[in-house]
């Protein structure tokens, strides 16, 4: 799977007269078929980065290469195709369409991509069983628990079988047990389906599954380490402070 190479990414938000620089020349590269964790203090620009990679936002300057395409140069139509086929996004607040049932939410990206209905049905069933939600398919989001909603969110993100999965604090709203299950799903996706997963999170357990962990401070990468390193260091600091975060 193609690597993602981010070069010199700058994002400036203009609100009225003031400017907020969210990303200040961020460089990084992420290997295909890995789980890449992004961590950092609140407001450091994690969501901004993810949005740019996901084609939800455009940077002020810089490039984001996926294989030999530059996302930054995409036209609006190409961005639509990018969102539809290349990336799947898992949101912290699930962002499911409230009027549609779980099954219909999963179908949505496929419908948007104009898949034929037989294929769509088979794929939906497959995804439902992947996330273990076969028996809740007919429920609407507000009848589902947070963890269940997030699983549907994950299935929705996977609908068009995108090679890249972007997750912005997917476990932020969940209790630790449910969060753990979701993380295990991500691992399964990398291992069995060959997905590239980029996860923004504060969840320290990420070290158990991530191939690499990047730290962003103030719009720049300040540190990068392997998942194992992060896990070990985390254990140390937890022990030394003897207080779980």
């Amino acid at each position, binding site marked *: 799977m193609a690597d993602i190479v981010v070069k010199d990414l700058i994002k400036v938000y203009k609100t009225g007269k003031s400017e907020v620089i969210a990303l200040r020349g961020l460089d990084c590269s992420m290997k295909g078929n890995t789980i890449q964790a992004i961590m950092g203090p609140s407001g450091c620009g994690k*969501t*901004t980065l993810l*949005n740019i990679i*996901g084609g*939800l*936002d455009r940077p002020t300057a810089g490039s984001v290469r996926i294989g030999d395409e530059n996302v930054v140069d995409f036209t*609006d*139509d190409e961005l*639509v*195709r990018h*969102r*539809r*086929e290349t990336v799947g*996004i898992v*949101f912290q*607040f*699930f*962002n*499911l*369409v*409230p*009027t*549609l049932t779980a099954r*219909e939410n999963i179908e*949505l*990206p496929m*419908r*948007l*991509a*104009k898949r034929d209905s037989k294929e769509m049905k088979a794929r939906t069933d497959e995804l439902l069983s992947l996330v273990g939600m076969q028996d809740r398919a007919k429920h*609407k989001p*507000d009848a589902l628990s947070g963890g269940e909603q997030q699983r549907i969110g994950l299935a*929705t993100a996977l*609908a*068009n079988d995108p090679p890249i999965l972007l997750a912005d604090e997917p476990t932020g709203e969940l209790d630790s047990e449910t969060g753990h299950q979701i993380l295990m799903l991500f691992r399964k996706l990398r291992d069995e389906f060959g997905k590239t997963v980029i996860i923004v999170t504060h969840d320290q357990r990420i070290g158990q599954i991530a191939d690499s962990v990047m730290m962003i401070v103030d719009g720049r990468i300040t540190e990068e380490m392997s998942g194992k390193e992060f896990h070990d260091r985390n254990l140390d600091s937890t022990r030394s402070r003897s207080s779980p975060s």
Partner: protein
Amino acid sequence: MLSFARFALDSIVRNRRRTLYAILGVTLAVSLIAGSLIAIDSASFGLLRERLDGLPVDFYGQSYAGDLSSIDVERYEEVTDRLLTVDGVQEVSYVVSCSGWALLNSDGVMYQGDPYYWYPSGSFVFLPSDSSVILDRYKIEGEAPSPGTVAIPSSVATALDLSVGAPLICSYQVSVYDEVNFTYVYSYVNISLEVSQIWTQEGVTEDYWQWWYSEAQGVGDVQLGGVYNPVVMPMESASMVVDPVSEVTLLSCPETYLVWVDRGEYANIVNIALSIDRLETLNGRLERAASEVSARFSCPVVQVLFDLGSDLSQKKLAFIGLSLPVVVLGVYLSVVGVEMGMTERRREIGVLKSRGAGNGQIFASLVMESMLLGAVAGFLGLATGFLISRFLLVPMSTLYESEAVSTATTSFFISHMTIAVVVLFGILLMLLSSYKPMRRASRMAVAEALHQYTPKTVKVEYRSRYDIAALVFVGYSIACVFWLRQAAPYWSGGSFVAYLLFSVTVIAGSSFVPAIPFLLSVSIIRLVTRGSRRLYTRFSWIVSRWTKELHYIVEKNIARNPKRASNIGIIVSLAVAFGLFVSITMESELAHAEKVVLYEVGADIRYNGYCRYNETGFYDVDYSVLGTMDSVDGVDKSVMVREQSVNAEHSYASMAIFDTEAFADLIEIGSGWYVGDGSHDITDLGENGTVFINEDFADANYLVVGDTIEASMDVYPDHDSVGITVSAELRVVGVLKQLPGMSNNLYVDSDTLSFIEPDWYGGYNIIRFFVMVEEGADPSEVADGVLAWGSSAGLEGWVEVTEERLEEAMAAPEFRTLRDFLYMEYALSIVMLTCGVGLVLFVTVWDRRNELACILARGSSPEQMRRILMGESISLMTLGMVVGSSAGLLSAYLYGVLMDGFNSSEIPHDLVFSWISWVVVLSAIASFMLASFLATYNAGRIKLAEALRIRGG
């Protein structure tokens, strides 16, 4: 509490978008009120101006104090000076007149004011030395005559063939009773005067009650000082008339004082009662000032105001009634707008409360805010109402009838009352429509308010009870209409109380017809969209071909916020229903009115001919010409009707003798014209010896169908004054109310009376012709041809032309005002529809940004997004259109049924679906599409990153 009220102001200023939603509805509703009030005021102001324009003088006082021998300029001047001292008087002048003169030219031809009567109609009018104000105010075209000469109206000059410099001979007949011979002895005073001025005058009349005079004023006619077509002379030369007359007789010589005031101040349309009061007081004071000559003053301006006042209050009521539908639409919109703002601020209120604000404080600040908003909306509405009333009227009225200048557009008037009413109305409306949401919002539990942060389907409680009740009521109302139409006129049994109860309930029920569009629109759409979701889901298939793979989202939309969905449907439905109801009803009434005129005249043209007498004392008609009417240019068909006075059932009756077959072919005579079971037809008269009689004649003589009557009349076979009496036995075959253009007692076919030769008829009979003109021919020109043809046949006649009558009716200022008003209403309801739908859709999109962003993030293209949104709104619009147009058509139909019941049904009401109704429907669709396109256009361009960040209010 007060310091907290600052919050209200801040809230308005800081949340401009929300402020806009809240006031948009009120502003629009208010702008209609403002627009109507301005239009009504302007129209009445225009009417007042138009009518006052025709009045040359504000007060005129007449005194019969002196006679011709005592013309006394000093006295006149003295009275004038005294009148000038009365408060408010601006100018005073006077004229003196003397009537009873015959006017002749040097060849002895006499001027006759009226061709049918012989009487000397000339009068002298003596002008004061400074007559400029009179000539000016009376819009006289011409100068004051120089001393020793006279000015005459050009109509007199034409009649007597006089030009400037020619002598005019004025002759007064003095009669003295000779008691010896018991006879009058006549002598004449003849004065020859030089004509130095020939005058014309622009349509004016001194007497408001003779307004028709100024409209129908003949070319060259002049009215001055209470005298029609005067011979005008300077006062200083009065002796030229006075001296010769004084030798033989005394002539009365009334003096007329003319008084002008500041009309702008005294004739105030805003307070007509006060204006009349002030003018009447002034009238009294003028009489008091002129008490020396005991002049009686009258004030034509009072008549104008009085007439307009009663007219105006009726009209205002009618207009307010007519504008109610659109006000209802506006109120509905404002409620929707306010509610939308309130839902949006639930979170804000929750935050305030969590910081310690009490329910009362919140409520007070909301009330304060809504009053401020109401005032703002009032002023804005005033401004837009003004713009709307100005700019929409001009193109619309010219579109209809290019040369017609609308009274409402040519004059502009806005009163303080209007401003006050409109602003107060804005505040009231704002308070009314926000009271409930405000109370609910201020009492909301804090936790609940703060809770919402993920999009949720809105669950608004809905009870179908009210809607079902409304439908039942509509059904009752419809039933009442038909009862009233069919059962009520034949009600016979039961006591008076039962009858009273019956009629009160039925009349009350059917008087709700105008409310039907509202009730139906609201209840059906609420039932369909909120009562059962399945119905709407089924309904939305109409857009499925277009929304294709995404249709399932459209189907589900209703579940998300059914209230909002039904609001869109209701707004569309209301606009269409009222637009159609009003336009169809108006156009049908108009078409009916046209028919009424046509049937009154009886054909395109009715020619009424009288016989001229020749020297032998017998009338002088060329019988060979009478049958050739159809050869006149432009005549398609014609029927001759002889009106003959006959003796039947021991009394005189008028009989119409005509070719019944041809008449039935000329104009359609529906069953409404006949009395009885409706099996009669005028062509039944084809059977010899039959007669139709009218209702009055039947009642007066206790006649029923099958009776035989004997009718006799005098005819003159020898063409002299010695006639013979012929008679005919006639069997009554039917009773009728009257026939189009004819109201006689007896109607017979000419074949029945064929034994009377055409040239035997004599006496004072009328020969009428009913004429239909050829397609494309100008009826007025054809009428001229018919007139000429009539006199070639030896008839003295006049014509009535249906089209001319119609034009006259349409040119009436009242009619034009009403029409303008309706156009404004159509336009406004379309504007409201656009704004309302745009507002709701825009808010919907805004509210759903998060949800829409989700769909976009999942890979939807902007175009797909728009398809979803347009699909949703189009299915709502179609629902609204279907319900609205059926409700509009139904109510228009019911209204027609009701009107048929109230008016005589000789000419039935047909529903007319004219181009205006098409314009209403099509522009509703167009504006809806525009609004939904504009509102959804941005949806495709939502900033995803931002929209997805937002998780709460």
